[in-house]
């Protein structure tokens, strides 16, 4: 909301308040200010009369002018095509500063001295859209007489006005008007309000003789019409033009400008129809489906039954609350005007302007317009039309209204105010604040009965009043306290804690956490999963790449890997813990995943020749370490089945615990990316597994016996099969088994491999005898040989 300070000052005298103070004070009562500027920030501009204008001797387009600026006559060289003798122009004299810090100096143009500059409006910082078309390609020529020679040009044109650009909150519809702003300033600076003049003479014809109004929808709460006759269409007076410009509205002609002026002043949008084009019938109704209306901007708008239209006996002539229609437009030939001042349902206008277009009018209707000021705005328009457009005003109004004339009242105690704010504010001050805000009230033993003015649509409950007291009193002297509640311990849920534990583990082994986007493209949402689910698709995506929720985190981690590789960062060891969402039998389901990616080297010191590169066994070790940490040691199984097709088919494995699938690990298929190893675990499944608490197991005081055995087996036999047989037959004295060597090559037949195991035997109560160890040891060997076709090596 752009507010002209001079306009504001007309209704609330704030001439004694410094601009800097406004900038400081207003945000502290809830009205954010983006910036305070001037219509033109130039300095050193005066009005000059061109008393002589000759062709430049050395140029075919420049003129040499003699310009009377009051104190003196300056010789100025000017290149504008419209420069002419006897015209009044804006002169930037020696030392003037134009926007963008251009300083005007005496100079010499093609051998002729030039002591200043004749300015276009653009050159003094007026936006292109405000410049009248006849002055777009030349200097601005001012209407006037010799009395204006030498006066300050910006002051004369009102371009020295300051503009406050407010960023208002959505609830304060009342502030989208100069009058509403005036009330706000009056409350803040404790000033009196004086409202604009709404008086006019009426002629002896009544509008009732001319208009048949029919409101056929509940979405219009008030509709007032009036007519004026015999308007003269011309340029608006300077103050109207400059104030519209300050407010961001382009001046057009006096009549159109007045409708905008009153809207800005009252926050009540008005619409002017050309009476002769409109005819006598005005119907307010909902649009028919696919009904068309051509709006003022010449666009054909196709409507539906949620749009409100104004129609005459033939067709829709305006899109209610949003924009007028072309067929009844006020043009330079217009003589008679039918004025509409109405209030429409904000929800409908919001919907229409969202689908069709947003205008200054619809912005106000969407937020809410005070229907009790509608008539006053109408009168103000009549006053201005009489004064500046020579209009004759018809008597009476044609009115439809179903608004409630009763003002809202709210009961509140001083204690409630003080308790909610946590501040002790005296009764006198509370009363004083209500007075400043223009709220009528009665006070009975600390209990207020407050009458809310119609303009404050945002106030309906006690808490709204508490906020008014809080913001006008200010929060600066509020002393912070802590809630008086029963002391209790705070914490996170066990599942959240589980996730934090997993994160802690993974960072402790040098994996780095990433955070990536949930939304991805359809193709990626189906990758890296053995059971493709339909993920959640957004209705109105920003792009194809952010269209649907992901089902696996791996594609995101691969993107991170690619991003880093492209920047020569080749050692990428990362993980992420995140939720994914999908459709499950028409329900939305969610699960928590933990995924990791390892690529390049994990530990690296070239100088010492220490290098651990990522490979299947590293990623397996990471996952085994994690599962062990989660106390699932000995319960998990790696099986080469059920793999996502994006994984290497012979260098990947699914992980099962108690036959339940909990995720997978392995090498990513080289079709997707080279040398990348990943894992993904379902944390909901992991968390659902019961684990026992830690219980100390006594360590044997007696020496343990270590024995090695090596078998030659088929190359494809999985080591876990041998391991299982060893464990199964190891009896209670077998404490630990480790694989310490896998060998193929010399001395081992092709198609075979040798695997060596280290077995540790011990007993908690005594020293084992060689015989009993050897008996178990030999039994294991024969079982492995018999069950797996293995052959003991180096017998």
């Amino acid at each position: 909301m752009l507010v002209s300070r001079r306009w504001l000052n007309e209704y609330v005298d704030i001439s004694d308040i410094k601009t800097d103070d406004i900038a400081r004070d207003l945000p502290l009562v809830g009205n954010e200010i983006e910036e305070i500027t001037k219509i033109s920030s130039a300095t050193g501009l005066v009005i000059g009369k061109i008393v002589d204008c000759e062709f430049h001797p050395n140029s075919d387009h420049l003129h040499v002018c003699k310009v009377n600026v009051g104190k003196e006559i300056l010789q100025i060289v000017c290149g504008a095509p419209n420069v002419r003798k006897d015209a009044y122009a804006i002169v930037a004299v020696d030392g003037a500063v134009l926007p963008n810090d251009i300083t005007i100096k005496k100079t010499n143009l093609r051998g002729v001295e030039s002591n200043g500059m004749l300015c276009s409006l653009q050159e003094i910082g007026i936006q292109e859209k405000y410049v009248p078309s006849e002055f777009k390609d030349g200097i601005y020529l001012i209407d006037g007489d010799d009395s204006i020679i030498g006066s300050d040009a910006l002051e004369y044109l009102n371009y020295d006005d300051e503009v406050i650009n407010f960023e208002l909150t959505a609830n304060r519809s009342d502030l989208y008007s100069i009058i509403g702003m005036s009330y706000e300033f009056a409350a803040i600076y404790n000033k009196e309000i004086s409202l604009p003049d709404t008086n006019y003479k009426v002629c002896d014809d009544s509008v009732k003789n001319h208009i048949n109004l029919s409101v056929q929808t509940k979405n219009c709460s008030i509709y007032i019409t009036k007519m004026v006759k015999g308007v003269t269409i011309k340029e608006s007076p300077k103050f109207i033009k400059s104030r519209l410009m300050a407010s961001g509205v382009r001046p057009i002609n006096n009549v159109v400008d007045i409708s905008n002026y009153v809207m800005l002043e009252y926050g009540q949008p008005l619409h002017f129809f050309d009476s002769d084009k409109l005819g006598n019938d005005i119907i307010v109704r909902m649009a028919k489906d696919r009904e068309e209306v051509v709006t003022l901007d010449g666009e054909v708008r196709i409507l539906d039954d949620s749009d409100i239209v104004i129609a005459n006996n033939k067709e829709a002539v305006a899109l209610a609350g949003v924009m007028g229609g072309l067929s009844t437009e006020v043009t330079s030939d217009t003589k008679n005007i039918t004025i509409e001042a109405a209030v429409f349902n904000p929800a409908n206008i919001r919907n229409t302007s969202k689908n069709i277009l947003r205008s200054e009018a619809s912005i106000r209707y969407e937020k809410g317009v005070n229907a009790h000021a509608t008539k006053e705005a109408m009168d103000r328009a009549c006053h201005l039309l009489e004064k500046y457009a020579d209009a004759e005003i018809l008597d009476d109004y044609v009115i439809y209204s179903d608004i409630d004339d009763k003002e809202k009242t709210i009961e509140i105690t001083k204690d409630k105010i003080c308790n909610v704010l946590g501040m002790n504010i005296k009764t006198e001050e509370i009363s004083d604040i209500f007075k400043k805000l223009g709220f009528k009230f009665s006070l009975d033993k600390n209990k207020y009965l407050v009458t809310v003015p119609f303009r404050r649509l945002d106030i309906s409950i006690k808490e709204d009043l508490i906020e008014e007291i809080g913001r006008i009193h200010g929060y600066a002297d509020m002393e912070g306290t802590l809630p008086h509640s029963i002391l209790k311990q705070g914490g996170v849920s066990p599942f959240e804690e589980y996730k934090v534990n997993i994160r802690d583990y993974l960072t402790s082994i040098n994996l780095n956490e990433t955070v990536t986007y949930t939304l991805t493209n359809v193709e990626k949402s189906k990758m890296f999963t053995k059971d493709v689910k339909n993920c959640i698709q957004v209705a109105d995506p920003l792009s194809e790449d952010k269209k649907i929720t992901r089902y696996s985190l791996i594609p995101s981690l691969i993107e991170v890997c690619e991003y880093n590789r492209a920047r020569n960062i080749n050692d990428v060891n990362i993980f992420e813990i995140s939720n994914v969402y999908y459709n499950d039998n028409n329900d939305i389901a969610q699960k928590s995943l933990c995924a990791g990616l390892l690529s390049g080297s994990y530990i690296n010191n070239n100088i010492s020749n220490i290098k651990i590169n990522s490979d299947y066994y590293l990623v397996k070790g990471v996952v085994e370490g994690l599962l062990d940490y989660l106390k699932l040691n000995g319960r998990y199984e790696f099986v080469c089945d059920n793999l996502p097709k994006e994984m290497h088919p012979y260098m990947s494995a699914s992980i099962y615990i108690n036959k339940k699938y909990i995720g997978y690990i392995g090498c990513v298929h080289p079709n997707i990316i080279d040398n990348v190893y990943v894992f993904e675990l379902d944390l909901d499944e992991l968390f659902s597994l019961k684990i026992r608490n830690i219980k100390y197991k006594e360590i044997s005081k007696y020496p343990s016996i270590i024995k090695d055995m090596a078998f030659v087996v088929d190359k494809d036999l999985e080591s876990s099969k041998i391991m299982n047989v060893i464990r199964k037959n190891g009896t209670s004295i077998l404490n630990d088994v480790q694989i310490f060597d896998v060998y193929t090559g010399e001395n081992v037949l092709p198609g075979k491999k040798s695997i060596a195991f280290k077995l540790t035997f011990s007993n908690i109560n005594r020293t084992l005898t060689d015989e009993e160890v050897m008996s178990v040891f030999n039994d294991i060997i024969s079982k492995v040989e018999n069950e797996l076709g293995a052959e003991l090596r180096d017998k």
Partner: protein
Amino acid sequence: MIDENLIKEVDEAINNISTYDDLNDFRLKYLSKKGSITSLSSKMKELSNEEKREFGYCLNEFKNSVQSRLNAIKEKMDLEYLNKKLESEKIDITLPGTKITKGYIHPLNRVIEEVKEIFISMGYDVKSGPEVENDLYNFELLNIPKSHPARDMQDTFYINEEILLRSQTSPVQIRTMLENKDKTPIRIICPGKVYRRDNDDATHSHQFEQIEGLVVDKNISMADLKGTLEVAMNKLFGDGRKLRFRPSFFPFTEPSVEVDVSCFKCNGKGCNMCKKTGWIEILGAGMVHPNVLRNCGYDPDVYTGFAFGLGVERIAMLKYEINDIRDFYTNDLRFLSQFKYIEKSDDDASK
């Protein structure tokens, strides 16, 4: 008793020992079975008993002194030898070590952890909820009906008419209040991912992290909100932070405020970070709107509450002076690795 010449000779020979070979030669010549010193004992049989004792004593003394001198020489030579060996093992201690490092948590989660810790220590529970939400929880029960103009304040990713990607973590507040059947007091924070239909640029992200807080109890006041946030902000941005409440508007709180914290870079004097104002806008907050309490089964005449919400990216960007929000999501390891260090508060929190 012992030949003076031999003593002199031995003395000279010992003085001339300078290598392990000399030492061995000496041992061979004087102390081996046939060595000149060992063979002295053969004289014993020619002596009387009286003389034997004296001679034996002298010989022993002599041997011992030779032996102890030899020991000293060997010890010295051993030490020299060891030192030479160590010297030969000299390495360039300035070459890089074989680093075993710890991975780092993402800077956004780092901030979340910090905030969690602060509030858990004040008795808050940490709650989470689904990111795919019902319009009912994300808007309607938060006093934002379908036609409410406040829906313009945030453009939302809808899945269908009723389902959306949550645009704030407030639905977790709603769920917590609704689930609390006994309508007892509540003190929670809810961190999590939220989504808005913004095109990504340096200051906007269609996905970001938010932390909201909610306290519902009897006699909760705005001063309680201020005091609570003062504790949190001083912990997060260092001691001496002041707070400023600016009135604002949110549909789910009344009164509502924007909360500024005094600039922690210039201490309120005015700098580029606070745009010369001395204040940095940090979060939105307010007193829970009575409609929201009522919607969730709490009687607004009995209970009041406060709520606040802060953007994790904003906190991280301010704290670490990061200029582009997209940096959090591209996960350039050169970016992430800058957040692997500890930070140390210079004041003692236990005081």
